[in-house]
């Protein structure tokens, strides 16, 4: 548990009169998987949007490796290492499974402004994409248009695209939502595998308590946009205030 990779300092956003994220200060260290929990509407996804840049912050700062990225556009934050998978599947529907992943690798290799070579002639990009598809067990579907995939496979592809990005900060927003019981473990194993690299940090928004118990090194609780609790899983889950106010319903779901 070394230096902070990602920090938010008094990060806040208001939509009209509603403060969706209210001055959240938090550090995310390399080698750590942080679960972000809280009731619906607590600001978890908005907090993610502020970090990855889809929503501009009203106040406060986002720092990556100590350098401020608060004013940078989304694509630039991605290039610097903030990678994001989305809660609602958000893919390129008309393109093939392979092409979805290939585009991510191509972005990482900074080849987008190459107008005159053939995209398929870059063997190293294609091979890297194939390797990722094999890892998430979508290899046999690689030629299919994404619009024809099942929901579970689209969720897997969503995770595959984040892994393909090879970021410093992985942000997963309910990666197993809506997946069947036998599909979810594939995704969870992949996320667990990412923890082996101690130079990265992983942020995980998740409702399923069993998932959090097995994967998380730390839990933060958001409530009404504020940071309500922060600490090791056992401690946070045991604390009275969390038990009653925020975990009660979630624990019943398990």
């Amino acid at each position: 548990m070394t230096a902070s990779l990602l920090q938010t300092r008094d990060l806040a956003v208001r939509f009209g009169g509603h403060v969706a994220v209210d001055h959240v200060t938090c550090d995310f260290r390399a080698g750590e998987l942080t679960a972000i929990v809280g009731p619906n509407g607590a600001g978890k996804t908005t907090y993610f949007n502020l970090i990855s840049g889809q929503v501009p912050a009203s106040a406060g700062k986002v720092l990556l490796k100590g350098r401020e990225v608060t004013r940078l556009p989304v694509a630039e934050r991605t290039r610097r290492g903030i990678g994001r998978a989305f809660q609602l599947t958000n893919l390129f529907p008309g393109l093939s499974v392979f092409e979805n992943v290939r585009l991510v690798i191509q972005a990482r290799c900074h080849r987008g402004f190459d107008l005159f070579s053939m995209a398929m002639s870059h063997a190293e990009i294609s091979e890297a994409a194939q390797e990722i598809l094999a890892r998430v067990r979508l290899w046999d579907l690689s030629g299919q248009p994404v619009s024809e995939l099942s929901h579970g496979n689209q969720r897997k592809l969503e995770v595959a695209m984040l892994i393909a990005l090879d970021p410093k900060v992985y942000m997963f927003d309910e990666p197993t939502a809506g997946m069947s019981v036998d599909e979810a473990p594939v995704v969870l194993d992949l996320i667990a595998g990412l923890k082996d690299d101690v130079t990265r940090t992983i942020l995980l928004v998740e409702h399923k308590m069993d998932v959090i118990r097995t994967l998380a090194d730390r839990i933060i609780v958001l409530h009404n946009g504020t940071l309500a609790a922060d600490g090791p899983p056992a401690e946070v889950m045991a604390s009275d205030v969390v038990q009653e106010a925020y975990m009660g319903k979630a624990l019943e779901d398990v």
Partner: protein
Amino acid sequence: MLTRLLSGDGPRSLPLALILLAIFLCLALAPFLFPGTRSVDTAARICVFILLVASYDLTLGYAGIVSFAHTMFFGMGAYGVALASTHLGRGFDALVLGTLAGALAAAVFALLIGLFSLRVRAIFFAMITLAVASAVAVLVSQLSGLTGGEDGLNYQIPRALTAAQKYLDEPVLGVRINGKLLNYYLVFAASTALFLVLLRIVNSPFGRVLQAIRENDFRAEAIGYRVVYYRTIATCVSAVAAALAGSLYAIWLRYVGPDTTLSFEIMVDILLMVVIGGMGTMYGAVIGATLFILAQNYLQGLMGAAAAGLEGVPLLPGLLDPDRWLLWLGVLFVLSVYFFPTGIAGRLRGE
């Protein structure tokens, strides 16, 4: 070799391949297969419009950008050649300079329009292009001292590209080998080469990013592509290709005027050609432009013949009167959109 030339993006359908091959051979041998001023003129127009429609497909079909300024870029290339030939006098240097100036003007306009308006919603960009294109068209018709106004400009091109220059004393296969023939092959070769360049661009890493942006611009940004830059570059590339098509057209016609290059009618024609042929396929531009221009040129004659043949039958001769050709073109368009929503090329590929 052929795969590399087509950038690994072949027709992928036997009927489509055969149709494309037939169009290619007919255009390549047009002066010999269809001798006569009018048919060679039609062939040259087809060549120019294939390039023009393909360049429009780059933005509309691949990047999903709706622009109404394409004829403006086309006109810039054409007026570049016309103005250079008028003011610098007849010569190849005027043609080259005019072409380059037209392409540069198109690129600068596309860059400015793109940077100002591609950040915002697609409908806003479409409106801006419409406004700028209308303004330019009005300017061109009003500044008659410079542009010839509604009358346009007539100018001379190098003698080496006109019928006055004979290269062989004896006709080959009944065709005179003169400057006009050379001019046709200049148009044909340049259009073919530029079409292949566009085909390469849509299959390049850059072209793939454009398709990603068309499918989901939000996610394209999230995986690290600056969407506004890609859209702007696509608009510039498309504008330059359109300007080059305009220059070829001006070299072929030896005349430019608002009606031949800038009018909104041509913009609508381009839209129809790309939709009928098939958006996002490049080959659709070939089929769409060929069909449309053939219809434009020969449908009237065909209808006249049919009307004459059906004389005495009630109603039909009136419906088939040559003056009704636009009606039938409209019917054809509605039917083709209804039955082939992915265009002819998309349909033949089984999409």
